[in-house]
């Protein structure tokens, strides 16, 4: 029995890969890249969220007085990992946008199949 969020995560990854293989617009490819990343992030974040004795875990924020006694905490490490990964994703996104603009300037098109002067 696989939890639903894992299926969703892998579905997102496969949708991204599909777009990579069959879409030709560079902007759509950037979206596909982010979709794959988002799928993996969903997988990672749902790893830290497990039911313990049927109680929903709460966010691991330490405020000293609000935490209910006995309430399980969600795993904090996956959240840190996903945050780092999102920052990396933003870097990749902005660099991809800049390169796409430059490609439009040189080639006059966003069709990735027209970007094939380097071959052989």
């Amino acid at each position, binding site marked *: 029995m696989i939890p639903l969020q894992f299926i969703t995560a892998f579905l997102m990854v496969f949708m991204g890969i599909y777009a990579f293989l069959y879409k030709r617009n560079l902007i759509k490819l950037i979206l596909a890249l982010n979709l794959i990343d988002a799928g993996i992030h969903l997988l990672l974040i749902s790893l830290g969220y497990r039911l313990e004795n049927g109680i929903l875990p709460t966010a691991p*924020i*330490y405020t000293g*007085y609000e935490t209910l006694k006995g309430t399980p905490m969600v795993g904090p490490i996956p959240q840190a990992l996903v945050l780092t990964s999102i920052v990396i994703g933003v870097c990749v996104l902005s660099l991809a946008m800049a390169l796409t603009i430059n490609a439009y300037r040189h080639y006059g098109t966003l069709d990735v199949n027209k970007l094939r002067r380097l071959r052989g």
Partner: protein
Amino acid sequence: MKSDMGLIVKTMARATIPLIGIFGAYVVSHGHLTPGGGFQGGATIAGAGVLFIIAFGVGEAKKRINKSLYSALEGLGGLVFLGVAMLGLSVAFFYNTLWHNGPIFNGKPGTLLSAGYLPIMNLAVGLKVYTGLMSAVFAIALFRRWRK
């Protein structure tokens, strides 16, 4: 290079930009207590900057934004982060010496002046993310004018 935006957008932008900025500053400064932190807060403040560019146009933004200053501030944010991480180098890199035996930020957990180097790091990261994202967005906004 006049902006195409109408009066409504400009007025709304004037009204909301300070609020967005204040909210972002709140997220940055309470990063060690509530969800959020330097990156999220910095990105929120950068949202205010993007709204400024959209509402008032690139020409207006060019007058207000000094690119080399932003780039230097981004470097400064990184340097502060690195310097705070190096404070506890006698034990280990990234050792939270302020929290264990430092003069400041070692109060009771849950209060604003606690958590050692985390608030300082959040401020540094917020500065870096805000200036970095603004530089990136600004550069991309300037970009489409290569033909003229």
